């Protein structure tokens, strides 16, 4: 059986969902990040000087873009799939001959597309404040894509396991946001000392932000190969775990 039509239907449905509510999904990151660039980059950054040879404004642009990609790809899948579960319209997919990988690919694609669109919006806003010439297009785009994929998968798992609306806000608020801020968005990990540097290096988001920063402005605190290995490794693990949850029907079937 050809599942491309089912996949296409699901992806279009997911895109229509976040486009229909664009004031909630696409507009807020534009405003929030414009404020970040204005306050941290322009007003405070002007007094900080350079980090690893880059102006502070240039230094924070990649981190802020990728932080938006992370939070929006995650938020899209977790809210969409949990609502589908909550309203029981997941049954439309479970009854139909749609294999688990199509369900996963459909929702994750929605998250990736929203994450990348928000990333693009934030990147366009950053052009008002910084004058960035892309260092390596392939690394920039591939790292944005892989990061969006990883956090879409994480959002999917959160939605499958969530039993209430509280459960879908705990991880973004108490884990994802702190890890993003501590992932070197606003500072170089080399500025930390001792145990804090070691702890920071255990944060996988640090590797994604630095690899993306390397792609955009050519500055990094970590090995690019290691960053790809960590991101790819997490994607594989989360993908198989998501498929396992769907196969067992955990959180969606009795």
């Amino acid at each position, binding site marked *: 059986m050809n599942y491309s039509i089912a996949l296409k239907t699901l992806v279009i449905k997911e895109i229509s969902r976040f486009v229909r509510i664009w004031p909630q999904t696409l507009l807020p990151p534009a405003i929030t990040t414009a404020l970040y660039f204005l306050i941290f980059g322009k007003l405070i950054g002007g007094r900080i000087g350079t980090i690893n040879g880059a102006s502070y404004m240039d230094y924070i642009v990649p981190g802020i873009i990728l932080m938006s990609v992370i939070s929006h790809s995650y938020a899209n899948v977790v809210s969409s799939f949990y609502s589908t579960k909550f309203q029981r319209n997941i049954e439309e997919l479970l*009854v139909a*001959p749609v294999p688990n990988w199509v369900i996963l690919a459909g929702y994750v694609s929605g998250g990736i597309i929203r994450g990348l669109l928000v990333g693009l919006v934030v990147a366009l806003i950053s052009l008002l404040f910084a004058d960035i010439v892309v260092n390596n297009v392939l690394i920039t785009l591939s790292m944005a894509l892989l990061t969006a994929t990883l956090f879409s998968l994480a959002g999917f798992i959160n939605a499958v396991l969530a039993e209430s609306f509280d459960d879908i806000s705990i991880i973004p608020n108490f884990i994802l946001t702190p890890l993003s801020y501590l992932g070197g968005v606003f500072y170089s990990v080399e500025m930390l000392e001792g145990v804090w540097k070691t702890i920071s290096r255990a944060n996988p988001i640090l590797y994604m932000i630095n690899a993306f920063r390397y792609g955009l402005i050519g500055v990094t605190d970590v090995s690019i190969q290691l960053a790809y290995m960590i991101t790819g490794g997490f994607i594989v693990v989360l993908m198989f775990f998501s498929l396992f949850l769907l196969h067992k029907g955990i959180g969606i079937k009795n």
Partner: protein
Amino acid sequence: MNALSIRKLRKTYNNGFEALKGINLDVEEGDFFALLGPNGAGKSTAIGIISSLVNESSGSVSIFGHDLKTDRSRAKSCLGLVPQEVNFNQFDTVKSIVINQAGYYGLPRKLALQRTEHCLKQMDLWDKRDTVSRRLSGGMKRRVMIARAMVHAPKLLILDEPTAGVDIEIRRSMWKMMEAVNQEGTTIILTTHYLEEAESLCRNIAIIDQGLIVENTDMASLLARLHVDHFILDLAESLANVPVIAGYQIERIAEKILSVAVPKELGLNQLFSQLSAHNIKVISLKNKSNRLEQLFMDLVESKSTGAE
């Protein structure tokens, strides 16, 4: 060919509740089949397993010869489900709900549009195609679910209490629609609490209680088993005393209304002769309760008495 074959199907939930205790069931192609049972009997669990919404503990289900475990896609392609409760996205339009479902079943866009139009017109919802579904009435929402279930032209349609909570006019129009769909060749399995609905629509019936099939036969044979009919008689005048007529059990339920249990071997002629002899004038009569309801209660009650 059987539209549905269930063998030794068991389901035990995580809390230990055994909802199905190894049921076997066959539904022939083209049938209009009633699956009845009291609340908590196991029919929703059975339907959930057939439609892949519930994982079975053991046993097998095949739909038009396709095993639900080993030939899942083909089995699912033959099935359409109208669930008990509204389960579509209430922020979507009527048309998008139906057309998306067509997409999940792999219908190309052009065919999906044609089938959506056909089904919405059949359900008298074409004028509402661009309406956001949460703005629809309860009856319309149920019809949207029927249109959605039929968009891929399933060979087996399961209707889980499709007329619950709708008014009598809509219910009767839905009966006509269900009959028309069945006459076009679609096998229908109906669960309902309106036993009159099952009696008038279905040819075969299974009654499930406490996780077991307690009856599985054709409707005519089942109804033929009724030995006693209960009638309500409207009298022209009130009576001083309730008449005593041998073989009949007569009760007064209002001043001019009697309830009479009529054994089949005695019939109504003898009753009316005796009432005339007592100088009692009957204006009209009607069945006290639906015949199937009577049998249903007998079967379910005898089963629970046996279980105790």
